């Protein structure tokens, strides 16, 4: 009996001893070990040009080469050309790109065309499935798969946040005056009516020094705001049975009219504001509220202000005065985002896969989302909980908590076949709205354009894709 017990213990110890190194290894280490056999090769990766590319150029690319001996060639492409370049490479069969950054709403088009390599077999081979569970559900469940297969790893926690000036919102005189006028407390707006009340009130009291709010208004940004508001007010993009567009409904009209009216309490010329104009105005303290992606929050807090690459960002005059909240109605748009994928025409698929697994892994991605000069935002549960990240500036815990909640409640971008065409129709429509054209006429034209695109794609084809998209929890508010 004793002998058998000893034998059993010995066997357990032996097994534990054998498996211990494997259990200790995380996905990043596994990728590095497996990639060493490709030392000396070069892999190329398509990355959004500009700040985003500084991650692989300055940090992850050189580090990967040091760890594995694999060189990384970064192909910088402007966002609006990324889809084209990826498709051109795929169609020509050139295989110029090994790994890709893919905007999730493109996934149906790219996957159906065969331009993306299915990743399931690699995920299993290199033990990555467990770490995928750490990716926030909003991204993991909605931006990773198409038709049941993994085509990309969600790698950027894009979501819209409301930023507001705590010093103004907490000013006793402002609070008192606001309550006297509107009968409720001055606080981050819960709905768009409240945002309009607050925006107008602050503009009336403080302009031209400070305006109530400022939003980016030039293409393509406001279409994400429209998508969110339209659905939160009860709008549906299509009749699911006929696939006829319903964007020109009363809800669409209401949202368009509200969006247009809001320009009146924003700084003059807001119709021309892009990402940087809006950022500059908020950081300089000219606007009391804005809605944007997470980098605004980091830069407003002054994080990374000493970085050479961030010299173009105006010095924040509002550090320590910024509060973070959910956008009005509480279901913010998960605008854009990025997945890491492998090109189906790559000649180094496994090496490319290992690189993206390493990039996306818990360990490496935590470092990457803290790089002050890139635009990658936290997207893993471990990022939100990271003590290191939460200590980066005094309000970082509130910032991370808001991102986490926003991600959990986030609404997905519309994602259909040839989505770029629907996006273009929305972008043009909003541009016409700022130009003063009748909102109803614009919406009717947008609906016609939607219908024409759907017809061209094929009503039944598109209906099937829309059905899958609309069934996702983040597609429409329940």
């Amino acid at each position: 009996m004793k002998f058998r017990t000893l034998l059993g213990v010995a066997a357990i110890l032996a097994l534990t001893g054998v498996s211990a190194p494997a259990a200790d290894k995380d996905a990043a280490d596994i990728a590095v070990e497996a990639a060493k056999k490709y030392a000396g090769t070069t892999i190329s990766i398509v990355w959004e040009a500009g700040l985003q590319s500084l991650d692989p150029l300055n940090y992850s690319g050189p580090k990967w080469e040091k760890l594995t001996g694999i060189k990384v060639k970064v192909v910088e492409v402007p966002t609006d050309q990324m889809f084209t370049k990826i498709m051109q490479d795929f169609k020509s069969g050139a295989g110029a790109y090994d790994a890709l950054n893919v905007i999730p709403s493109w996934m149906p088009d790219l996957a159906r065309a065969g331009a993306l390599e299915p990743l399931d077999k690699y995920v299993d081979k290199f033990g990555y499935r467990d770490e995928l569970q750490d990716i926030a559900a909003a991204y993991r469940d909605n931006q990773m798969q198409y038709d049941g297969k993994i085509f990309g790893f969600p790698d950027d926690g894009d979501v819209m946040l409301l930023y507001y000036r705590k010093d103004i919102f907490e000013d006793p005189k402002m609070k008192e005056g606001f309550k006297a006028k509107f009968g409720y407390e001055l606080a981050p707006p819960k709905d768009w009516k409240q945002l309009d009340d607050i925006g107008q009130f602050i503009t009336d009291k403080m302009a031209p020094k400070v305006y109530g709010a400022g939003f980016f208004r030039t293409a393509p940004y406001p279409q994400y705001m429209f998508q969110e508001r339209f659905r939160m007010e009860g709008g549906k993009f299509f009749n699911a049975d006929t696939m006829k567009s319903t964007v020109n409904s009363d809800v669409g009209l209401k949202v368009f009219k509200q969006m247009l009216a809001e320009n009146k309490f924003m700084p003059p010329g807001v119709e021309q504001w892009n990402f940087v104009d809006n950022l500059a105005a908020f950081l300089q303290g000219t606007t009391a509220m804005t809605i944007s992606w997470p980098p605004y929050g980091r830069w407003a807090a002054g994080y990374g202000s000493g970085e050479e690459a961030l010299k173009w960002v105006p010095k924040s005059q509002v550090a320590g005065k910024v509060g973070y909240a959910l956008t009005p109605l509480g279901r913010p748009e998960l605008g854009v985002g990025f997945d890491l994928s492998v090109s189906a025409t790559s000649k180094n698929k496994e090496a490319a896969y290992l690189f993206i697994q390493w990039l996306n892994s818990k360990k490496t991605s935590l470092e990457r989302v803290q790089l002050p000069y890139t635009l990658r935002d936290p997207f893993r549960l471990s990022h939100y909980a990271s003590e290191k990240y939460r200590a980066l500036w005094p309000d970082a815990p509130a910032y991370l908590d808001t991102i986490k909640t926003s991600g959990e409640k986030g609404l997905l971008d519309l994602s259909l076949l040839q989505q770029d065409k629907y996006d273009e129709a929305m972008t043009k429509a909003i541009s016409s709205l700022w130009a003063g054209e009748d909102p109803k006429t614009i919406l009717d034209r947008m609906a016609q354009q939607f219908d024409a695109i759907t017809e061209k794609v094929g009503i039944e084809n598109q209906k099937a894709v829309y059905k899958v998209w609309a069934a996702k929890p983040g597609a429409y508010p329940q």
Partner: protein
Amino acid sequence: MTFSLSFNGTEHRRPSRLGRVLEDRLPYLIVAPAILVLLLVGLFPLIYSLIVSFQRITMTDNDTSFAGLLNYAELFRDTRLWASLGHTAIITAIALPLELLIGFLMAQLFIDRMPGRQLFVALLVLPTVISPIVAGATWRLLFDVRFGPIGEILSFFAGEPIRILWTVNPAYVYPAIIICEVWQWSPFMFLLLLAALSNVDQSQLEAAEIDGASYLRVLRAIILPAIAPVIAVACLIRGLDLVRIFDIIWALTEGGPGSMTETISLYTYVQGFSQFETSYTAAISFLVIALLTLITTLVLKRMEIAR
């Protein structure tokens, strides 16, 4: 090797058959590589595009099956296409006469010798050497509602803040494009017309002056007929450029607001490289080729008649 006797009795070596063939064909052989290259880079893409225009290729669907006249029929249903042609026509119809007029007035100003003339001419021609996309981006900054000097200057003269959304307000977006276009390309007209005016027969001008003819009479009877061929060529060159206008508008408005300033080149670009309607874009390009050929032929014919 054979020999023949010439009329003056000297002996000439008669070339061999191969030599005669080479001699006959030599000019063709010399130009053949250049023609081959031209065919490869010019004719082949043209023919290939024509073939593509009868197929159903999109970026996501490589369907090379014969589509008949499907894409060409679609051209007639595409309201955005015809609107973009209309926008192109508006810009051409306004910018071309303005450039011609300003170029002519500048040439008249600089026809007489004056101190520093060459320096001024060189400075005035500077805008034409700038890339149009840079010109558009520069004017976008100049028109900016918050930081642009144009708003500041207008506000100074008006005595109150003037905030014009040049690239958003439908009333100002065409003037903005035309100001930029005319600023960049009037100097081109100026250069051509300055050269043409310099070659007007001085004796005729002096005779007219002695006869007491008014400036308008001299202009109508002597100057314009003398420089008419140059004006026609200048208008043809600039007219074709204006039909293809892309960069300035892309930098200033990207075709907006909505599609209000979208020209045919912008629309073709969007269809081809943003929406990937490859076959349809090929059909659009053939429509443009047909229109340009028609316009060019009419202008050339008119020039022929005038001559």
